[in-house]
């Protein structure tokens, strides 16, 4: 009994070890993996875990940012500083270039989002670099289609997910065998919740872009959500622009990510706020998830993360 108290990992250490194990399985099984980096807290946590998995060696993969052109400037600055600090390779592929080469129209509407177009750019990048494994920061607690997805999720040559034909995934054994042209999406932090991420960030003092913390910002209120004033959204005459103290719970495009009113200026405040909240992360901040009940499932079937 004594032994079991002495040699015991708490939940964050267990989740960390599980994620590092998954990272190393990717390194051991694939020729051309890549880590998808959005600049959000989940992908920043992935980078931190990769450092733990592979240092003092280099990452056996580059980072890939699918740039919609609708970024928060703070996040881009953060991205570049982080990449510089860790000395790893960053590849950026722009949705704008895909739109030009494929002659895709600019999405229309008040909050015209290029979110759906990212899939084209991602699939093009996979094709260009022949990536066989794409590591992403999706979590199963985020959304119910994600709750169904395996940690190693095989996609066909069109990047499509077939939820009815998922490989059984047993114990901690990950089957990464694929045919040429297919790829595997790998989710090392599948079993983490939003709160786990924040507690982990706190424990290891991981730096984040400033927009996660409360700050003053010009916003408009639309159907109960606060959207930052930016060149990427259309502001109508009857929209009321106000300055509010807000923070972001997730980082996506400026055009489709909503802010929340908050006074949380440090991680402890944020953790307290999340514990008290009554709304889910995506429900509160993602304008793009509300389109239909199966919005995420449909996007995944088409190659999205």
């Amino acid at each position, binding site marked *: 009994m004594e032994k079991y108290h002495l040699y015991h990992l708490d939940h964050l*250490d*267990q989740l960390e070890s599980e994620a590092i*194990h998954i990272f*190393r399985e990717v390194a051991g099984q694939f020729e051309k993996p890549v880590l998808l980096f959005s600049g959000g807290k989940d992908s920043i946590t992935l980078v931190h875990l990769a450092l733990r998995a592979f240092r003092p*060696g280099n990452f056996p993969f580059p980072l890939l940012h699918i740039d919609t052109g609708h970024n928060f400037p703070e996040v881009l600055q953060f991205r570049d500083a982080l990449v510089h600090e860790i000395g790893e390779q960053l590849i950026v592929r722009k949705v704008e270039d895909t739109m030009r080469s494929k002659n895709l129209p600019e999405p229309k509407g008040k909050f015209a989002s290029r979110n759906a177009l990212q899939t084209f750019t991602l699939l093009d990048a996979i094709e260009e670099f022949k990536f066989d494994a794409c590591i992403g920061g999706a979590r199963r607690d985020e959304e119910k289609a994600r709750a169904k997805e395996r940690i190693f999720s095989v996609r066909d040559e069109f990047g499509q997910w077939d939820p009815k034909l998922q490989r059984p995934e047993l114990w901690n054994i990950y089957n990464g065998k694929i045919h040429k042209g297919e790829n595997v999406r790998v989710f090392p932090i599948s079993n983490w919740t939003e709160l786990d991420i924040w507690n982990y960030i706190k424990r290891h003092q991981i730096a984040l872009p400033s927009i996660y913390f409360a700050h003053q910002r010009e916003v408009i209120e639309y159907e109960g959500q606060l959207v930052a004033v930016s060149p990427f959204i259309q502001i109508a005459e009857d929209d009321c622009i106000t300055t509010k103290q807000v923070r972001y719970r997730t980082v996506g495009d400026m055009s489709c990510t909503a802010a929340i009113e908050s006074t949380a200026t440090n991680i402890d405040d944020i953790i307290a706020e999340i514990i008290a909240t009554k709304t889910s992360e995506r429900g509160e901040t993602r304008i793009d998830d509300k389109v239909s009940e199966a919005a995420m499932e449909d996007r995944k079937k088409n190659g999205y993360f």
Partner: protein
Amino acid sequence: MDILRFITAGSVDDGKSTLIGRLLYDSKSIMIDQLTAIQQQTKHKALGEIDLALLTDGLRAEREQGITIDVAYKYFSTPKRKFIIADAPGHVQYTRNMVTGASNANLIIILIDARNGVVEQTKRHSIIAALLKIPHVIIAINKMDMVDYSEDTFNNIVIDYAAVAESLGLNNITYLPISALNGDNIVEKSELLSWYDGPSLLSLLENISIHQDVNLNITRFPVQYVIRPQSPEWHDYRGYAGKLISGILKQGDAVTVLPEGLTTTIDYIEHNGKKVNEAFAPQSIVLHLKDDIDVSRGNLIVPSHQLPTVSKEITTLICWMDAKPLQKGNRYWLQINSTMVKCMVSEIQYALDVNTLEQKNNVSYIGLNEIAKIVLKTASPLAFDSYNTLSANGGAILIDEATNVTVGACMLQ
């Protein structure tokens, strides 16, 4: 805080998804927007109350058919524990999905409809629990509201189930009367079940001891990846990265590298970039060995006084998961942790009738969702333990050479 992973199993209408919905709802793990969404869907379905089952069914096909097809993972925590629920389908055609969900579970909740008692599905789910050696079993006798909260009904089912459990060698069983729909004995103890003197389901889940579920007595370290920076600063660095799947390793331990059998000692151990004197399961670490020997992904490092079986002939129980049957002479990839070898089915010893537990001899093939005992011949020696002794190094998968799909779950003997 630690993590308890559990799976829920039951027949189609035993109220499994309702139970999970209830646990999430009563432990306040459901957010307003999620609740609003299911309230709207409940209206679509023209039902009266909120259908808590809608919380777990994540795919469109599942919501349309009102059934669970694949495992959904759900998360909640209390101040005591983080919980990971594998909500697995109960129907026989989705047995493989249930096995997927069960393979990592510390605990299984098997639901029994109080009106129906122990049925075929109950037995099948119990066989899976026994096969996979799930350490803890809760038999939740549900829909007690439909049998007037009768103690006699409960007791009769307990007697019936105890016989099944005994025939399977299932231990660590707790029996619990509940009504998932009404929330009786889920989070709070129910006054309607005052004759039951045990704790509520949530209280059970919070307090079951799971320390021993990690084996700290037998040490196994599968090498996943070799870290070689080859930079001027780290010129001679060569670290073996992996997760200690069981046991404890210390600096200076005499170890053997399998399957080759070379021996050396542990020079030092790194955990998260820092040197440590010892490491324990399930930590991910980097190992440095004294001697310059050939070690790569797929090797298993073990203490020299604690050798596993190393063999090219392996007897195993298998749960078959593919529509294309398993036959003698078929070739597959066998993957155990980070080791992959080619193998061939050299013998089918028997198939197990999952309803009667009878062994059927002289079978020529094993079909989808069937359980069998077979013998595999591997192309090179494999280092493994018996699943019953050390599941962390005794569970393996078979992969189809042509489709690359995982087709079998093996419990090595």
